[in-house]
């Protein structure tokens, strides 16, 4: 690779990030920022779910673990007067601890059985929240959750969370940090091991990899990000009801991931971003969202099993074929 080409990628990433930081300067509409914030939440959820799925296991409890983070953080702030900035990581940690607790028994089963177990786990979390009325106010929900405390550096900075803009910057920072972390996992030997577990767990085990540990690790990492996302969501939306974290939400995250493509982390980003933005532009889509998503999912699994992230590669190989035989076959 020439030096010029190796600079294109970092440069375009930097440009994209700068653009994302500049958006609130151009866009004044609160509604549009709201959509972007929700897309940011979906991006973290989807890419963290992908880390779990790399081991070959699809978790349908992701919305449930998000609820754990959301309720933990909201209740800590409301009942114990904790600062949001302390409750926020605790939200993530509590989801991680629960994942650690259920992880070892759960990862004993594979594939569809794991999906079934996590499906029930998600439901158990949701039902526990709706039945534990003393603490969570059940289905009537937690209301008036306070916003994050203002960031004040005397004389320098005073950021109050009184409009969408600080929330936008907060979620943008969270997205960038989460993606950096998940990307590091993906491109390091940890990611290689997780993929190896998906490809042949007995092979991995036979060369000394503690498969169970790594599966639980993936689950814990994924659930940590679900937890902190939940915490952000709670203090952003300011109202929590158990129904915000149902099976459908969990399935949507899986749909984002599959439509975007599981092989690459940008597939998860792409899927989450496109599928959260799309219904906003076509109101009709929003009314029939489950149907539309199922349709998109079917089309993708039939015609583009690698997801949207696979398009560039397919395009390149098609071009290669058009150029004539023997051109692009390494």
């Amino acid at each position, binding site marked *: 690779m020439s030096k010029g080409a190796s600079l294109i990628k970092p440069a375009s990433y930097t440009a994209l990030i700068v653009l994302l930081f500049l958006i609130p300067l151009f866009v004044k509409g609160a509604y549009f920022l709201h959509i972007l914030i929700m897309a940011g939440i979906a991006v973290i959820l989807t890419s963290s779910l992908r880390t779990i799925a790399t081991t070959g296991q699809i978790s349908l409890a992701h919305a449930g673990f998000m609820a754990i983070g959301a309720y933990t953080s909201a209740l800590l702030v409301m009942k114990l007067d904790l600062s949001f900035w302390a409750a926020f990581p605790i939200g993530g940690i509590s989801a991680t601890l629960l994942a650690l607790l259920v992880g070892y028994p759960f990862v004993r089963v594979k594939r569809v059985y794991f999906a079934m177990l996590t499906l029930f786990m998600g439901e158990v979390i949701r039902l526990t929240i709706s039945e534990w009325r003393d603490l969570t106010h059940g289905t009537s929900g937690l209301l008036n959750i306070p916003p994050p405390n203002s960031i004040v550096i005397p004389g320098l900075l005073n950021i109050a969370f009184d409009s969408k803009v600080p929330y936008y910057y907060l979620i943008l920072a969270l997205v960038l940090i989460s993606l950096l972390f998940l990307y590091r996992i993906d491109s390091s030997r940890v990611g290689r091991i997780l993929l190896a577990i998906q*490809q042949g767990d007995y092979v991995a085990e*036979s*060369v000394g990899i503690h498969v169970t540990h790594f599966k639980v690790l993936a689950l814990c990492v994924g659930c940590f990000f679900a937890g902190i996302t939940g915490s952000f969501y709670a203090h952003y939306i300011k109202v929590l009801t158990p129904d915000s974290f149902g099976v459908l939400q969990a399935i949507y995250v899986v749909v984002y991931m599959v439509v975007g493509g599981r092989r690459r982390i940008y597939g998860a980003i792409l899927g989450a971003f496109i599928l959260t933005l799309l219904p906003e532009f076509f109101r009709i889509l929003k009314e029939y969202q489950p149907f539309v998503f199922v349709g998109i999912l079917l089309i993708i699994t039939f015609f583009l099993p690698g997801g949207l992230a696979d398009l560039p590669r397919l395009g390149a190989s098609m071009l290669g074929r058009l150029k004539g035989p023997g051109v692009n076959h390494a």
Partner: protein
Amino acid sequence: MLEIKGLTKHFGGLTAVTEFDMSIYSGEVVGLIGPNGAGKTTMFNLITGFIPPTKGHILFEQVDITGKGTHAIAAKGIVRTFQQNAFLPDMTVLQNVLTSCYLHPKSGVWEAIFNTPGYRKKEQNALHHAMEIIEFLGLDSVSDELAQSLPHGYQRLIGIAIALSASPRLLLLDEPLAGMNANEVNETLVFINKIRSVGTTVLLVEHNMRAVMKICDRVIVINFGKKIAEGLPQEVKRNKDVIEAYLGVSEDAA
């Protein structure tokens, strides 16, 4: 090096292995042979901890490893290959081998995520180790190909490469020659000899008798989960029990 005492495995009412005793000494190539269903692969599964024994003990270098997990046994130095093609299909040959270098050198999760200098050094070492194994097995020309896209002979070699990259001291090969043509068989035998020459002990399950007789220092014959003979290849070949139970009374044997 490896000592097996009174090893027994029941699967429900079926007894796969009965009161099996066996010793393997450092530096040997030992053949474990027997008719189909005799319990050879069960022995492999027991030694490497894929299944726990019902009774008996397995000692590796005087340490009891009975009932330990496969990954822990691999960390002690016993690594196996599989009868079916066992590799990571959707990864390149290099990635296959690199992933299997997990133990050598081992690095922590956090240093990998934070990309510390220590981790990068270990990755370099692992890459070096992986390339050595790939070159050793002559896979360098296909190291960037996806494992699933390669012909059968290469895939079997990848299986061996994966096992080797865990730096075993005792390597268990489960029918490494199955489905190979005469040329590939000869090449693989050369590899096995090379593996032994660097000090790795080999336990071999194989149906290709000519190859077993050629390469093994010692042969153990198992039938219906019991050891029926043990000794030098020539001795075993002439053993009456073996001929009857395993080879049958054929013109060759007579």
